[in-house]
């Protein structure tokens, strides 16, 4: 059974269909990819899943429970975490404080008596931010700030992780290490949905890819399958007539 499932989600902005009858599933222990041209609706879908965006129709279920009516923070408490395409770091805090705050917020609702400082240190290590732990996040380069967002999400010990272009701003080597980190996290049972422009990264680590174009899922399947799909090629490269014109 999928951990996160999106059924028939439709979102409209005025007359524009930002998402139209989108269906998607994310399984525990897997990295799923979500790709598509700019403006295809990827971030909107993330906003729908996390409750930052109302839908016209459709529902989102997490672990078999319908969470469509829950406010954002309640969804997070049921195991949903995300990062943002446009950075939403706590810029006035240090890296360590960002992670600590996330762990503290988790402790305040999970009431599990966890040691928040230990959690923060563990995550610092895991995402490789130890060297910049005491830097104010506003002063960090974008790629590093994205890692802070990832770390912050991990500090809440989620079941499902939604990553919105997490590798932009990373160099090739960093991106590769980043991919390995995601695979390791998935191996521990985390369900990951990854929005990414780095096609190479997506094709290497995702077991299943959904392609979104103009708010609709135009293809879905294994990386190989998706790459060969003529509709996908058209969406990305334009049709032959369009490009030659």
């Amino acid at each position: 059974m999928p951990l996160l499932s999106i059924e028939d989600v439709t979102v409209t902005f005025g007359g524009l269909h930002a998402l139209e009858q989108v269906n998607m599933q994310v399984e525990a222990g897997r990295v799923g990819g979500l790709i598509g041209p700019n403006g295809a609706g990827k971030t909107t879908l993330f906003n729908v899943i996390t409750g930052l965006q109302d839908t016209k129709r459709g529902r989102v279920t997490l672990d078999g429970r319908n969470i469509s009516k829950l406010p954002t923070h309640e969804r997070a408490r049921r195991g949903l975490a995300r990062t943002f395409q446009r950075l939403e770091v706590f810029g006035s805090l240090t890296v360590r404080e960002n992670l600590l705050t996330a762990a503290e917020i988790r402790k305040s609702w999970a009431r599990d008596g966890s040691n928040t400082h230990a959690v923060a240190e563990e995550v610092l290590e895991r995402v490789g931010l130890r060297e910049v732990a005491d830097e104010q996040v506003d002063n960090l380069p974008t790629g590093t700030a994205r890692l802070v967002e990832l770390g912050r999400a991990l500090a809440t010990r989620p079941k499902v992780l939604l990553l919105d272009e997490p590798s932009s701003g990373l160099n090739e080597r960093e991106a590769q290490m980043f991919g390995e980190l995601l695979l390791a996290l998935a191996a521990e049972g985390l369900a990951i949905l990854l929005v990414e422009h780095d096609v190479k990264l997506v094709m290497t680590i995702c077991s299943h890819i959904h392609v979104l174009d103009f708010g609709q899922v135009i293809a879905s399947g294994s990386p190989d399958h998706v790459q060969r799909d003529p509709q996908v090629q058209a969406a990305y490269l334009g049709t032959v007539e369009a490009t030659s014109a």
Partner: protein
Amino acid sequence: MTEFLRLTIYGIPVAAIYFVAASGLVVTYQTSGIFNFAHGAIGMIAAFVYWELRVQHHWPAPLALFVVIVVLAPLFGAVIERVLIRRLRGATLATTLVVTIALLALLIGVAQKIWKPESRFLPGFFAGNTFDVLDVSVSWHQAITVIVAGVVALGLWLFLRFTRTGIAMRAVVDDRDLAALNGVRPGRVASLSWMIGCMLAAVSGILLASVIPLDIIPLTLLVINAYAAAMVGRLRSLPLTLVGALILGLLSQYVPTYVPKLFAHNTLPNWLGGLNEALPVLMLFVVLLLLPEAKARAGRINVGARLQVPSLRASLIGAALLIIGAGFASQLLSAILLPKFATAIALAVIILSLVPLIGWAGQVSLCPYAFAGLGAYAMSRWGGGGSPVGLIAAIVLAGVVGALVALPALRLRGLYLGLITLAFGVLAEKMIFRQEYFFPQGSITVRHLDIGFDRLDLGVTRFNSAELYFMVLAIAYALVAVLLLAMRRGPFGRRLAAMRDSPAACATLGLNLTSTKLEVFALSAAIGGVGGALLGGQQVSVAADFFTMAAGLTIVLLLVVGGVATVTGALFAAVLFAYLQILGNDHSWITWIVVVAPALGAIALAKNPDGAVVDIANRFRAIAARLRERGGGIDARVVDPLTRLDDLPLGAPLDSDQARALDRVLDIEEVDCLAAAEH
């Protein structure tokens, strides 16, 4: 039935004035995203200038109207847009609100300096001429008011829908950057919208001033009443604003006539005493209650500087120094000056109440005096001879009321919290503090907090009761400051900073924003209560009209001057304020500084959101760094990513700081474009 008809017909011109005022608010908010709290004060100033020209200098009405409405008001709008508003892009909501509030206070202050209280009368248009509508006698002035509103409504509609500039204005609202890419100049459009907003404020002020006596505060507040109408249109829709204005206008006629009839002897019971005056803010309350919950929005970048939060050791040392300093001051200050500075410290505690709320959490309260008033009341009622029970009662009462007031607005975005607190400030002033129950015979007696002795002999020096109370105030301030700083260093403080930086991210981590805001709001109100209880003790006899909404705005402004996020700033600003007032007794030109200082503070705030204390500290640090640099020490240059980009050397390799700055500024859009280009 005739009565109903008469009231209805009289309600329409009132609605017309509210509509004109509210439409001005909506236009500026729409195009610049900034809610202009000074709207009412601009209308007030326009009415006074018009009075000056028309009545004092006998100008003909058309000429005076032309000069005020077509020349001066738009000019003023253009100037404030250029000087204040344009700098506010990217500032936090709290900053934007506080800046226009500073403007409000500045205009009130200037008006009070120029136009001393005396009874002034501004004749209506074609005064004395009336005609009958359905057997109800209507004055020409009322008819003209309605016609003016009609012209404004139609004019705005045509302008926004059919002119190139109007369409550009709407485009800027939808997407400023996109509009700019398409050749619209957002700066010019914003400037224009502020000009129109000020014109409309002027029109409403002049229309209103002919109906009520020409008086500074009432006139300003009456235009504030238009908030309720604007809120019905959710600050977006002009037609709904018209509906709101109609409801407000009609209620303003029906309620005073019909509501008393519900009670014995056809008179309002005491507890409803201020109902008529408070009606618009009650309506504002209700409208805000009915608004749907706002979702946290991602993608809004708050520019927040990192604040150095003093360590426990540093804050304890600071507190100790303050208390020792206060000890000396209490012995050195004359019996006349001591109470003034004592008052300043009590005010500083009230200012302090806003630091966690506005400075740390980025939420806004505009009614610090309402909570202070409740605190003073609690101290008077339960603190009998100065018992600490009174202080505890002040904390509890102010905290609980604060939570109750804020609850409906906390679901909404920050601006609404500002508005609802403003409404509550007026409500407390007009409906609570005027009650016999709270302020019998219009005043209460508040005792000094009892510390077990009322004089102290240290051998070298003796403290009398006034000096001891001065010490109590200083210790209270130090204690509150130390506790607040301890909180700021802990989980709750981090959470507030996180919420200020990114509400959306907090929500996705599982933080319930509403309850967090509620906690900090209640905390702020409770501290305000303590400050009020202490201030009351300093005043001893506190009049019911002491804790007014307008006077409370001074607190907000002093906070701004001192720095919204620092605990030292509160004391700095309050003491400076007291000092200037004292100097003002001898040199009247200094009182101008007191009037103008808030505006200067606001301008500084627009440029540097962290306020004076942080600014001074930064300057010292910069000087120290430069000295170190000269001495061959480490390079302490700080690259501010948003302002220093122009300084980056082109064509030369960047050092790591510069590279980071560049990376920050180019950030995501660029990356997006590159990625898109790749595909």
